């Protein structure tokens, strides 16, 4: 019995080792959204293209939508934009942009250089809608179903791997349910 007790520290250490090994390579800054399963919060913000037009949550209802949070000052947004163009043009994905804490001039410059894949762009210079959505940095991409309910939130760039392994399954499920 006593000898068995002496093996306990070893077992404990093995357990800790397993957790540490599992933690390697994981990115601790990628958080899950607290908004999943909740509808997009109400908002009333200008469209980027036309300050006269006011957009609200109905923009995100009716069809499964990808809401992409971006800004000109965000380097990774420059990286992912090409793939977003492809998704929009080739795959017909309904992309709505949320221009987060940016300025009109710089946003236009960005779009002029890289193209515009968005059906519509919400202009959120104060980051108010972003704050309500739980956005903490750019880029982030939300999958929103036809009822306007948030199904998923991806933190970081959207590329082929992310699309195929993460977003597409969620979109298909959302489409299947509507």
């Amino acid at each position: 019995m006593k000898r068995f007790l002496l093996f306990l520290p070893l077992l404990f250490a093995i357990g800790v080792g397993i957790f540490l090994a599992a933690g390697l390579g994981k990115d601790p800054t990628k958080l899950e959204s607290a908004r999943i399963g909740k509808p997009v919060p109400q908002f009333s913000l200008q469209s980027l293209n036309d300050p006269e037009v006011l957009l609200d949550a109905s923009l995100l209802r009716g069809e499964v939508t990808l809401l992409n949070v971006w800004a000109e000052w965000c380097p990774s947004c420059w990286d992912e934009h090409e793939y977003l163009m492809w998704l929009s043009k080739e795959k017909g994905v309904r992309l709505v942009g949320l221009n987060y804490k940016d300025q009109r001039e710089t946003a236009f410059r960005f779009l002029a250089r890289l193209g515009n894949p968005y059906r519509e762009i919400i202009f959120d210079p104060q980051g108010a809608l972003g704050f309500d959505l739980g956005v903490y940095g750019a880029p982030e991409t939300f999958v929103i179903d036809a009822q306007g309910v948030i199904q998923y939130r991806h933190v970081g760039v959207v590329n082929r791997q992310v699309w195929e392994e993460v977003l597409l399954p969620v979109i298909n499920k959302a489409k299947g349910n509507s």
Partner: protein
Amino acid sequence: MRFLPAILVLLMLSGIARAEVMAVYDFDTRAEEQRYRDLIAELRCPKCQNQNIADSNSPISKDMRDQVYRLMKNGATNDEIVGDLVGRFGEFVQYKPPVDKRTILLWGFPAIAVVGGVLIVAGVAMRSRKRDQGEPTLSQEEKARARQMLADKDQ
């Protein structure tokens, strides 16, 4: 109001660096001011390398501080304020882990360990005392044998 630890270096690198105009919040009483400080020390910046929103200079931390101030002025309780931010960003932003069945072991650990340890020590102490009482003594025959053996050794 907020100061710039090295995290600013990282922010610079991620391109969000801008000179920010930050508000210093006004409070009616010192107690309120203290309450605000306590709250923002307990909330975590979701994108920083482990900083509370009191010490972080990131834009999201500022937004969160604004929200805390706004809610305080609207008369929300501490729980409601923390709940509001957790509702947006998840449990991650709370430095005080909630007490639920996942964290029972965590919160209860010190008490369990100390009680367990004290019981073990009590056991050790009692076993030692028993040793004291149950000291074997030699019978007459054994004493004679012992005397004989000692005498043999001397020769």
